[in-house]
């Protein structure tokens, strides 16, 4: 058996990124699933419009469906959701009675070219390398119908780097790879909170963070600067979990779409997110 003289292979890199995402994305969502779900019940308007405008009987996917809040927006459609987190897929499936299963966006269990539409909302920014982010778009596009006349379309949302006016205050010069903390509210089970407490929870959970993160970064660099405010009030501090995000620059999602073999037919910026509707080119 020969030994590899160059241990830094693409495969090794890929593996490293998988391990990194398992630790800083998948594990976190499994732990925070019920609390996360309780704060995620209102569909975003552009996503809702996209789903409502689909013809009745269209068949589509929600890649990274979370608690499944988009799976029932338009009951005249048939939608299948998948999520990397079993915890979230379970909530979508058992609590909200949607068709949700466990899958990786890079290895979707669907026949190619069969779907009228796909959505992937706030998901692919969790992939930790440019190659994997492009691969995610390619994987989603592969599921869509390719007829030239009326191709399937994918709506993809990612978090934007440019959000100067948000509480986080990032701008185009901020680091693109960051940790965003989730402050787990103890005792907050899957029950949907009332409007007021919901707002408070949101302020607490997405505390500002300025640390950079990357699969290759050292631990000092990747430490998130997070001091949740309510720690002072609580006798026992709520645990904080950091999720890895890649923040997209203006135009980056479109460039990824083209590299993935797609064509952007509509794109925009909405509330700190970039979005694009992409068809197979």
């Amino acid at each position: 058996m020969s030994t590899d003289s160059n241990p830094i292979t693409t495969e090794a890199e890929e593996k490293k990124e998988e391990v990194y995402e398992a630790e800083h994305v998948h594990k976190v969502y499994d732990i925070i699933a019920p609390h996360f779900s309780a704060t995620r019940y209102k569909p975003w308007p552009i996503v809702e419009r996209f789903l409502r405008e689909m013809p009745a009987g269209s068949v589509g996917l929600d890649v990274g469906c979370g608690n499944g809040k988009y799976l029932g927006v338009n009951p005249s459609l048939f939608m299948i959701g998948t999520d990397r987190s079993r915890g979230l897929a379970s909530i979508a499936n058992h609590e909200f009675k949607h068709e949700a299963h466990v899958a990786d966006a890079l290895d979707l269990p669907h026949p190619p070219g069969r779907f009228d539409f796909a959505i992937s909302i706030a998901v692919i920014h969790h992939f930790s390398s440019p190659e994997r982010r492009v691969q995610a778009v390619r994987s989603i596009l592969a599921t869509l119908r390719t007829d030239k006349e009326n191709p399937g379309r994918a709506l993809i949302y990612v978090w934007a780097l440019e959000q100067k006016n948000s509480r986080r205050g990032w701008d185009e010069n901020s680091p693109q790879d960051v940790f965003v903390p989730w402050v787990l509210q103890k005792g907050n089970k899957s029950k949907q909170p009332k409007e007021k407490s919901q707002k408070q929870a949101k302020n607490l959970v997405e505390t500002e963070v300025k640390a950079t993160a990357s699969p290759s970064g050292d631990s000092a660099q990747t430490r998130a600067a997070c001091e949740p405010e309510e720690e002072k009030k609580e006798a026992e501090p709520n645990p904080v979990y950091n999720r890895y995000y890649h923040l997209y620059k203006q135009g980056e999602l479109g460039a990824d779409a083209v590299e993935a073999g797609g064509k952007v037919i509509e794109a925009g910026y909405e509330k700190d997110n970039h979005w694009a509707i992409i068809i197979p080119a």
Partner: protein
Amino acid sequence: MKLLTANFITCSVKSCQSVTPALSFRDAELAREEIDFSPLFLRNILPRIDWPLLQRTAKELGFPALPETKPELSPIAEGDEEGVGSEEEQKLLKELHSLLLETSVQSGKLVCANCGHEYPISQGIANFLLPNHLV
């Protein structure tokens, strides 16, 4: 996993995705849950069904044989907003409703005829994650 979902599922391994049909149910435990019948929904979804695959799935799970070819429905009459159609069509749509939407596989596995990988299903949820050597 509802049987309608199973009609849009294949092996996660890329090289198996061109093989039709790649997945078969094994050791499946079924459940039935009554849900509201919408003839219009079934009319709209019928054109999207892979009929040979549905026939195969139904056979695997021990259901009576489905018609040889996908049923052709006549256009719904004016005023029939719910798409009820003729008595015969309604019977057929009810049967499809029961099979596709009310029947689900609660546990068991989906096995790929091409690569042999088994995807477990538990509590109605299938797990399509691949072991590293298959990626």
